[in-house]
């Protein structure tokens, strides 16, 4: 079993960083699978086989999106930049530069030094299943 997602000794990493690394690796794998299915679909002439692969690619879209949302929730600055880029009409590069600049200025309520998410909240959320 490999542990390629780690670039530092795992035993030196805090648990939340190890979780982050696992989900980052998962995100990468889902993106790779989406790309592979895209290539297979481009060359596959059999309609039945294509239908199966389209269904499978849809699963990968879902997995990728869930991984991404998890990582964004845990990374306030990434989330702030993503909010400025994703699902926006217009020039993608311009949006990216603007979102990055805003995040450097502590935009979107994300104050430097705070461990909370990009909306400025304390990041408490659900406590179901947590010990009191």
């Amino acid at each position: 079993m490999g542990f390629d997602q780690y670039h530092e000794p795992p035993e030196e990493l805090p648990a939340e960083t190890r979780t982050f690394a696992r989900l980052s690796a998962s995100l990468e794998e889902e993106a790779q699978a989406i790309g592979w299915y895209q290539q297979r679909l481009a060359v596959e002439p059999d309609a039945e086989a294509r239908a199966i692969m389209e269904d499978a690619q849809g699963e990968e879209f879902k997995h990728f999106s869930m991984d991404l949302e998890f990582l964004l929730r845990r990374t306030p600055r990434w989330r702030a930049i993503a909010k400025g880029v994703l699902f926006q009409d217009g020039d993608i590069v311009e949006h990216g530069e603007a979102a990055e600049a805003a995040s450097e200025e502590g935009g979107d309520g994300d104050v430097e030094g705070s461990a909370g998410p990009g909306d400025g909240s304390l990041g408490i959320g659900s406590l179901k299943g947590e010990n009191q």
Partner: protein
Amino acid sequence: MNHLLRGHAPLSDSNWKLLDEEARERLHGPLAARRLVDFSGPHGWEHSATNLGRVDKVTPPNGKGVTALRRQVLPLVELRADFAISRAELRDDDRGAVDVDLLALDEAARRIALSENVAVFHGWAKAGIGGIAESSPIKAGKLGRNVEDYPRSVARAVDAIRQGGVEGPFALALGPDEYTRVIETAEHGGYPLFDHLAKILDGPIVWSPGLKGAVVLSLRGGDFLFESGQDLAIGYDSHDGESVYLYLEESFSFVVATPEAAAPLKS
């Protein structure tokens, strides 16, 4: 910068870190309802209403042969607890003080957590929120005068929920007085009452400030829905030479989807 206006506050990064961490720590214990209900969001400060999936009939604006319906929604409510922090104390934080006076923040955290719990457990009629205890069709049982009676009362409440077709695991939310009685008690033979109750429930026992009496409820999910707009956050209001005026704020709605998934217990 968003509506919290944190960037306008005369606070250093260290001050914000101190306040946010203190608030998280002070809220984590008393936020009992969030340990028991499903949590959706946060959906953002702009999120104003929860979709109820229901409609009212309304008269169409004109013409025959047209019917009209109006969607029902539950508006989100905003809770805000104001507090002030001494600027001298915050300057001491920047100097490295470890005993900064944050009592006003602690008190604000207690007030807003208590309000959230009361809204979820007992409802908030003026906000259109029905509470878990008051919504239940199961007649409130009695916890009993003696804590030795608690296991029987809780077991009956679990049974009443199961009779309605709702499975567990179950949790027991206890008001502060009732909780204290449980944790300080060992039954005959020394077996802790806490552990006995946990075995009956197959779930947690939760200290719930703001709750009167107790509630047994299912944790299977889908029965009690807390929808968060802005999750709890510290915002900036104003400042003068002496103090910085801040507030804790959140917006949310709460819907009981399965009233029979809970059974209230009176003290």
